[in-house]
């Protein structure tokens, strides 16, 4: 593992799509020309001010950005340490940060003349966001979702259908998010002419990790601006939950070169890191190749991918974005984990103290905030990415609490 010092943590990936040894383009030959076409199209769009202007306009008027940076006063008092701010990305249209990336990719798909959009989804948030944008622009939308996830996320499945998307169950393998990704890739291989694959996280073959990061970086850029306006200085620490890692990367990336900002990613420890029932790819996995990139993965000694487990369907992916793997090796970002139980406790505390029902994903970030905030001085500014709202999770939570709805 490389630990050489770098001048900037924000210049990756290189022209081969690598962050250190992570990332790359590990795809079948059929897809290679499409990946190269996408890379070029994204480069062109990035250099075109009219593309950014169109995206900004939709983010403001349709998504509802900027999202507030909110001082969580009662949580701060309760924990008795750091001054805690929430970046309120749960207030976006469709209820999570996923739409930031989807708007970017769908505008790019339109620019490329693609009429058919495919996506994978775990908890359903990315699927709902994609179905939403496709409805808005009159595009055909097919969402692949593991049949196990379809069962545990029924409200989101219905939402996608209302929005006109076709939800296709992934019946192979473990029938969860990783299998939905496999099915989406299989669809793409079979429909190369007219199809755009809208990946929901900072993973997959180059240029996806870079592109999704760029679209999500609006979270960190706004946070920087808002914190400077509120407190006159940068935050001291950032905390975000990580499945594939797109909300975290969006918050972290603009701060990577601000070396005094402590950055912490929180993976899902499920039933505990000592059990096999977790989804902590960095804390409990090792480097391998899946879904087009090299990154930390959960697998057995023979290189077979194992299933992630988490109370949160959005976190139980056995991999993580390759840039996170690199930031871990470089020790720029600290990766920790929170269990199902800790996340559930944080979920309940947030409801009671702040009047906000968070999604189970950011509840993992909050669980870590609860651990470290009390150890910090009162002038320590801590930002937690509240990346999704918890309406979709009330059934899961009710079930665990033994409440019949």
């Amino acid at each position: 593992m490389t630990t050489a010092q770098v001048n900037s943590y924000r210049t990756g990936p290189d022209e081969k799509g690598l962050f250190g040894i992570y990332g790359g383009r590990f795809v079948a030959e059929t897809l290679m020309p499409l990946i190269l076409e996408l890379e070029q199209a994204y480069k062109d769009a990035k250099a075109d001010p009219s593309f950014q202007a169109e995206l900004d306009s939709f983010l403001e008027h349709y998504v509802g950005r900027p999202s507030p940076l909110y001082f969580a006063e009662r949580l701060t008092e309760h924990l008795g340490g750091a001054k805690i701010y929430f970046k309120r990305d749960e207030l976006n249209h469709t209820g999570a940060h996923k739409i930031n990336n989807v708007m970017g990719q769908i505008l790019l798909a339109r620019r490329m003349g693609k009429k058919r959009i495919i996506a994978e989804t775990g908890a359903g948030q990315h699927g709902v966001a994609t179905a939403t944008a496709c409805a808005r622009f009159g595009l055909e939308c097919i969402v692949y979702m593991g049949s196990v996830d379809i069962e545990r996320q029924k409200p989101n499945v219905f939402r996608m259908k209302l929005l006109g998307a076709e939800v296709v169950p992934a019946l192979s393998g473990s029938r969860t998010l990783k299998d939905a990704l496999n099915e989406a890739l299989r669809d793409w291989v079979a429909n190369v002419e007219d199809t755009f694959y809208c990946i929901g996280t900072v993973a997959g073959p180059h240029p996806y990790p870079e592109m999704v990061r760029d679209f999500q970086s609006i979270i960190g850029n706004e946070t920087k601006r808002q914190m400077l306006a509120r407190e006159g200085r940068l935050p001291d620490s950032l905390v975000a939950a990580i499945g594939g890692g797109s909300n975290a990367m969006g918050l972290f990336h603009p701060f990577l070169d601000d070396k005094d900002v402590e950055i912490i990613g929180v993976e899902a420890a499920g039933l505990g890191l000592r059990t096999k029932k977790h989804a902590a790819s960095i804390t409990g996995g090792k480097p391998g190749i899946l879904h087009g990139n090299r990154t930390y993965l959960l697998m057995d000694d023979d290189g077979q991918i194992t299933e992630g487990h988490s109370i949160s369907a959005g976190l139980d992916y056995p991999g993580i974005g390759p840039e996170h793997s690199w930031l871990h090796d470089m020790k720029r970002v600290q990766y920790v984990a929170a269990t199902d139980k800790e996340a559930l406790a944080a979920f309940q505390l947030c409801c009671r103290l702040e009047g906000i029902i968070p999604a189970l994903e950011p509840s993992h970030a909050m669980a870590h905030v609860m651990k470290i905030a009390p150890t910090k001085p009162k002038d320590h500014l801590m930002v937690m990415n509240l990346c999704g709202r918890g309406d979709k999770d009330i059934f899961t939570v009710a079930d665990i609490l033994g409440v019949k709805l």
Partner: protein
Amino acid sequence: MTDRIECRFADLKQKKRAALVTFVTAGDPDYETSLKIIKGLPKAGADIIEFGMPFTDPMADGPAIQAAGLRALHGGQTMKKTLKLVKAFRAGDKETPVVLMGYYNPIYVYGVEKFLGDAKAAGVDGLIVVDLPPEEDDELCIPAMKAGINFIRLATPTTDDKRAPAVFKNTSGFVYYVSVLGITGTKAPDLKSVERNVNRLRKHTNLPIAVGFGVKTAEQARAIARSADGIVVGSALVTAVKDSLTKAGKSSPRTVKAVHSLVSDIARGVRS
């Protein structure tokens, strides 16, 4: 000349017929049955044996080969056992080329150098690794060729004349032309488009071209054999394995025979 793949294609060229390349998944449905299946393949008419290295997430494969991989994994198949199978086959057959086909992660985790050494020692002649396009040649392709193992490339309908030189730059053995846009074993290939594409690719390479993905019957094989140097049959064979299994998913007395008789049938198509 020790390269079995080169010898085999040269020999068949003299006989003026295409090669029948058969794909089965290593360890499907269990180690012993799998060994019996491959041991009998040459006699049944297979000219080259492709052996699938099972992987949990085979993103270019259709339901039939996905299921075969999972059966093998449930049966306890590992990369070590796959190499052991090749070794056991090689003990009784010095001529038939064996090509391992699969995905990069199990090889990467095994360790590239160790894998290449063990594979060479077991008698492996070539590798087809679906998720390693030319852009990732430093990973395995270059080391494999240095170790004396052919790195066989997949060419697809999206491999246009602009991209072809990159695809054929570092490769040997033969070219595996994927005849359909899609995953294994789903769509039937359009014969005219196959012929057109095979002839187009010949402008870029002198290597033999084998055609696969979707070839299921003796008739298809016969038709494709007119323009190609080889025909790959895979999903149809692993489906024959599946259909022969007991209700509990175990191998039955019919399993080995089911595969061999289908191979014989298709071999007659290729040879006629």
